[in-house]
């Protein structure tokens, strides 16, 4: 059991940050390739009832923000000498797109935080983490 491809679903929360640091450590130990993915929600942007162009604007801003976050992550990964890919996915369903991504890229391990941005209950598991953990075909490491 060697982890060659590690996937880190990232959303900028503190849990995701800790999951990323752990993934960097694991990648260093196993000489593995790191893939960081952010899912941007398309369906519920709001503002579509005022002007249809607003949606595109919001999406652009969100993409810029995530790219800034990714550049930070890239810096830390380079410092540790790990090759890292980052990707932004636009979708309606974060769980489904993460699962299809992990299938298509032959991911061996998913490292993710226990709850992300939608968190309202910190004791139980977040909905995205729960969905990914239940349906993924590869091992999942959940950081709390």
């Amino acid at each position: 059991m060697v982890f060659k491809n590690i996937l880190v679903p990232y959303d900028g929360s503190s849990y995701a940050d800790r999951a990323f640091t752990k993934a960097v450590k694991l990648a260093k130990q196993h000489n593995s390739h790191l893939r960081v993915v952010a899912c941007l929600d398309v369906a519920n942007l709001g503002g579509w009832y005022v002007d249809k162009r607003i949606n595109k604007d919001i999406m652009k801003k969100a993409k810029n923000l995530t790219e800034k976050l990714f550049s930070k992550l890239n810096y830390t990964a380079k410092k540790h000498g790990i090759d890292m890919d980052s990707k932004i996915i636009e979708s309606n369903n974060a769980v489904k797109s993460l699962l299809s991504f992990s299938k298509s890229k032959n991911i061996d391990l998913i490292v993710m935080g226990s709850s992300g941005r939608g968190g309202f209950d910190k004791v139980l598991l977040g909905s995205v983490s729960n969905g990914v953990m239940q349906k993924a075909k590869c091992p999942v490491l959940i950081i709390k």
Partner: protein
Amino acid sequence: MINLFLINKFYMVFKNILVPYDGTSFSNRAFQKALDLAKKDDSKITIFTVIEGEYSAILGYSKINPQIIKKQQSAAKKYIYKLESTAKNSNVPISVKIKQGTSIVKEIINFAKSKKSDLIVMGSHGRSGMNKLILGSVTNGVVQQVRCSVMVIK
């Protein structure tokens, strides 16, 4: 002690690894993975098995028949003995605990709390597997309620 714990948490080093074991292929693979991780981080492994006892339709799981519990314990010890020898061959400190209880999830969570383990490595399904697609009930309960990180091996 507290400082050391904080430092470990900051650098994300897993010092105490807990492996709930039930003898299935999933848990064997989980143990192998835990061994790999422990070798690299110099961490301790604790193997934990919960024995339910006899199930009767009227009384539920109970302690009534101590002979059966003893039999189950000796069977579990046979399984675990192999694991101990493999861990000793690769120089990983290992400890074993067998406990009798009715709720497996609760026992695992309490044990993880009392031992201050910072990672639980467990298989996705156990002995009571009916549905191989989604997660087993014990694994699901542990992942949702426990306070430390969990690695689910599939």
